[in-house]
């Protein structure tokens, strides 16, 4: 059994594992954020484990189990999906426990320290869009969750790899051959899955908050030009709340935070298939708009 820590600002995770695939991928993807040199003085936010199931399962179709303290939020998965399971487990851990931020299920990218949130359900192309923007002049703050400072419109980076699925995997590898990728987790409930490491500039800026200036609800459509629909604040508020992980727990503070974010942002729903068009639109209409 090995123990390592991942320092992913603003959190430190301490993880136990006996699965070589987890160690290899964690080192590869997190690089300087990964350490096996455990210092007692380091404050650990979350203690996790991802280990082989016991008994015969260790040898016959081996499975991986994820635990956060003594809680097991997911059913065991095939061991070849263990690193993806750790990533999903870290997402679950933060979403289920963190009360210091208003947390929204959303990608976050920034330019000139102005951030845009991309709340979206699976299948909207959010992660492909995130991967593309993060490699083309936009700073990645998160692929999965916006950590919004309470009663402000400022978002804290939580720089993690981008989770790509199915046909997006080959697309990303062709577009960004120099990026770092995890091994493929095949046949997960989301299909084949790979994690693309965050660009080093994004990791280096992991403590630089950005001001939220836009909220864009993306929808990928293969046969469309860029269609843009401005949204009003009331519609956008209801959508953002429905994408919030901890609204029902944090309550009043979350309500104040989200109303403030809504009032200081522009709001759009977009239908797209050309990522460069989306980037140009975001630049002109949100980042550099007066």
């Amino acid at each position, binding site marked *: 059994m090995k123990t390592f820590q991942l320092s992913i600002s603003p959190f430190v995770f301490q993880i136990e594992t006996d699965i070589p695939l987890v160690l290899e991928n964690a080192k590869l993807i997190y690089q300087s954020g990964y350490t096996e040199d455990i210092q007692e003085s380091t404050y650990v936010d979350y203690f996790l484990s991802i280990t082989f199931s016991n008994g015969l399962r260790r040898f016959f179709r081996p499975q991986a189990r994820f635990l956060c303290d003594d809680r097991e939020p997911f059913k065991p998965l095939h061991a070849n999906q263990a690193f993806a399971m750790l990533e999903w487990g870290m997402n679950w851990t933060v979403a289920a426990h963190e009360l210091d931020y208003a947390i929204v299920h959303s990608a976050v990218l920034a330019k000139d320290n102005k951030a845009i949130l991309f709340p979206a359900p699976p299948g909207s192309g959010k992660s492909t869009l995130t991967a593309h923007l993060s490699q083309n002049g936009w700073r990645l703050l998160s692929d999965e969750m916006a950590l919004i400072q309470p009663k402000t419109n400022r978002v804290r980076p939580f720089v993690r790899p981008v989770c790509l699925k199915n046909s997006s995997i080959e697309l990303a590898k062709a577009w960004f051959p120099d990026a770092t990728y995890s091994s493929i987790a095949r046949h997960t409930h989301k299909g084949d899955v790979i994690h693309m490491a965050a660009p080093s500039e994004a990791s280096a800026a992991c403590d630089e908050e950005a001001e939220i200036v836009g909220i864009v609800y993306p929808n990928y459509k293969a046969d469309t030009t860029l269609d843009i629909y401005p949204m009003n604040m009331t519609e956008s508020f*209801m959508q953002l709340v429905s994408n919030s992980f901890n609204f029902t727990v944090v309550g009043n503070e979350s*309500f104040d935070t989200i*109303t403030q974010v809504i009032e200081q942002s522009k709001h759009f729903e977009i239908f797209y298939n050309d990522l460069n068009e989306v980037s140009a639109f975001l630049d002109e209409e949100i980042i550099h708009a007066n």
Partner: protein
Amino acid sequence: MVDETFSQELELKKGMRLHPFLDGSGIVLFDPTRTFVSSLNVSKETFFGWLRSPDELNDKNAELLNTLIHQGFVVALDHAQSEPL
């Protein structure tokens, strides 16, 4: 079907929060105890007009107000305890 409480003035239940958006697109109501939200695409002034004269609403708006009553945001005005808004 219109609720019986529509025969009298209504008010926002104590403790409920209301936020009108700057773009005038509508208001959101928040119940901090149940952490439940609801929205209406009307201004704050229009909404309070509905509460003062619920019997004058058309069917569509009466149904919206009825929903807020059932969600626990709006109650019959208690004159003994009412305070200026």
